[in-house]
């Protein structure tokens, strides 16, 4: 999983549909941020900077900043390529190189990108990382992913093993284990590779920035509790989470972005407006949904359209929490820098156990007054998908509200069947409507 640290299907990617895309101001800001990061990466070598790659969940952005690393997020690269309709080829390239059809397509899109000459999503080169910081959080594939990159393209891996919240809580031994790894394995390795000495006060400064941005992000996402919701908590939120889930958490730019974003969304809220869609204002909120599972990137706009065309708004999603679950109170804490980094890693959505995931969704259903739950099951992602049908069943049972199930994939266009998904969504919305009518009539 990961986030679109990025621009949505940018105008550049939409060369075939010249129709203008409607964006909020904050979106332009966000796009500029993302593009700047790609440019930073492209020019890192000539500026003598080292490059670190790391995964979105459990990413230690502030820590990497302490060593002056330029930061590359492979999941983000994959999804950016998908938004630009380039991922299909990359995935196939990796399959031809011996990767199995069955495994996560993020890995394959990433390997494909390396194989195809290391050109990044923006067309600028994306140099090979000097270090692969393997924050092994919530996903088995991460481990193999960096082993594969290391095996094929060199570079050093640094493992940060984050234990799973099997009992639904962070036991002290787990936190100690992670902190100990940070102190004794990760930081020394990063010092050695970067040649920069670790300064914990620098880390504290960054964490302060993170905290501010996290506060604003939570405020933005929670505006969806209102009726009508001024945001889409899934399709819209993937843009909002971009900077903070990737290379920008801890930077003043990110703080500024979230300040602007919050002001903008609060203005929409005051104006009683619904979410902004790529085609302008939402046609009117008819159904409020909670979504579990990552989106599909290859047909992102078509996928979104299936929702707003029917009057559906996603008010909350678990996916917008993959890079950090902030809405239940967690914040990075400058007073406990390493401990709070450890807790951040341990608390990522995919590192939660089943009972926690179910509780979280049920809470969303209530707090955001949703009509139902929709599960988008992603072929690639065992971490998300294995067992989702039980989540669906349990949430239905506990909330008494209907749930529906669709399937697609992250960046492999072969697994997106528009007709199939539309059929299910349509049936689902009609079912909700029929129930409502019946409730009114009987």
């Amino acid at each position, binding site marked *: 999983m990961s986030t679109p640290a990025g621009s949505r299907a940018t105008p550049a990617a939409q060369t075939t549909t010249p129709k203008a895309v409607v964006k909020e101001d904050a979106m332009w800001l966000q796009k500029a941020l993302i593009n700047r990061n790609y440019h930073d990466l492209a020019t890192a070598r000539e500026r003598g900077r080292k490059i670190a790659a790391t995964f979105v969940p459990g990413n230690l952005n502030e820590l990497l900043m302490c060593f002056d690393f330029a930061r590359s997020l492979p999941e983000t690269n994959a999804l950016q390529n998908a938004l630009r309709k380039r991922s299909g080829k990359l995935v196939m390239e990796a399959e*031809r190189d011996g990767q199995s059809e069955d495994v996560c397509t993020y890995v394959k899109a990433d390997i494909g990108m390396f194989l195809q000459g290391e050109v990044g999503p923006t067309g600028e080169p994306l140099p090979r990382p000097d270090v692969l910081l393997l924050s092994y959080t919530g996903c088995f594939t991460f481990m193999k992913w960096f082993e594969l990159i290391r095996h094929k393209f060199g570079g050093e891996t640094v493992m940060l093993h984050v234990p799973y919240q099997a009992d639904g809580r962070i036991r002290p031994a787990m936190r100690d284990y992670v902190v100990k790894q940070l102190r004794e394995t990760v930081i020394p390795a990063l010092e050695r590779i970067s040649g920069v000495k670790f300064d914990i006060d620098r880390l504290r400064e960054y964490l302060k920035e993170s905290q501010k941005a996290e506060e604003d992000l939570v405020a933005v996402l929670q505006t969806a509790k209102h009726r009508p919701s001024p945001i889409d908590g899934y399709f819209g939120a993937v843009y909002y989470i971009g900077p903070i889930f990737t290379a920008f958490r801890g930077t003043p730019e990110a703080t500024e972005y979230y300040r602007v974003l919050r002001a903008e969304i609060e203005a929409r809220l005051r104006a009683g407006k619904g979410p902004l869609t790529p085609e302008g204002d939402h046609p009117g909120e008819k159904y409020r949904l909670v979504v579990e599972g990552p989106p599909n990137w290859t047909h992102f706009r078509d996928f979104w359209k299936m929702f707003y065309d029917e009057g559906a708004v996603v008010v909350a999603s678990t996916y917008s929490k993959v890079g950090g679950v902030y809405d239940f109170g967690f914040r990075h804490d400058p007073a406990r820098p390493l401990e709070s980094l450890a807790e951040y890693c341990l608390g990522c959505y995919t590192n939660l156990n089943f009972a926690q995931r179910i509780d979280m969704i049920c809470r969303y259903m209530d707090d955001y007054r949703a009509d139902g739950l929709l599960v988008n099951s992603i072929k690639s992602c065992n971490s998300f998908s294995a067992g989702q049908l039980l989540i669906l069943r349990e949430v239905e049972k506990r909330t008494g509200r209907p749930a529906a199930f669709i399937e697609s994939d992250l960046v492999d266009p*072969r697994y997106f069947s528009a007709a199939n998904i539309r059929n299910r969504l349509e049936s689902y919305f009609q079912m909700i409507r029929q129930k409502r009518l019946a409730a009114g009539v009987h």
Partner: protein
Amino acid sequence: MIHTVGIDIGSGAVKTVLFRHAGDGTAEWLARRCERIRRRDPMELARQGYDEVLAEAGLAPAQVAYVATTGEGENAAFATGHFYSMTTHARGGIFLNPAARAVVDIGALNGRAIYMDERGKVLAYKMTSQCASGSGQFLENIARYLGVAVEEIGPLSRTSTNPEKVSSICAVLAETDVINMVSRGIPTADILKGIHLSMASRIAKLLKATGITRGTVLLTGGLALDEGLLAALREELVNEKITGLEAVSHPDSIYAGAIGAALWGAFRHARLAALEARAAA
């Protein structure tokens, strides 16, 4: 001089060949048979093919040194031995075209790409996995649906200017895709070409996965005669930038497996004879 018979029991057809081997290592065909199975018992047909090639060459069973099966014929009672189909296709491919370094065999259900050296030694191979809309059977079903005879598929596909790709991985859903295309008024030629391209891209992928980068690729099996598929494969190889490969066919391609079996049969026969001689000494 000895005689060997190779029998390739496929899921679509049974192919039988009879070879005469001169002492100098050269071999020539004496007779061949290709019988579509069409819901009959393949073992029966194998037996029948065997009897017929012997009759045609005027030989008695005792005059045949080795009867080798390949394909699904592991337990034919009258066979001397069995070779697995990629082993035989590689050898048969070399016989038909000594320059070939890879064989692509597209049968009724599975497709395989086999990479071999100049002696027919299999270096690597890849098979299609279960979900295969790119099988011969699928093409045949669709052609029937469209009212196109098997031998017409190729020429028609070559006339296509705007092929429509089939996206579904599953043959059942692909069938519906095709029906949808007809309903949208897509011309038959474009549909067929689209299927050919899908199949070709799958083959190109298999080929690339074997690791071969240059040389001649020989199409074998029933679909080798489909010039539309050959053309599509050539296009895909260019698309995929595997330009070191040149795809060709051969009029006798469908017999490649059976030929390979007959040739390996002779090889084994010599080996066994040598062992027996040693044992006797």
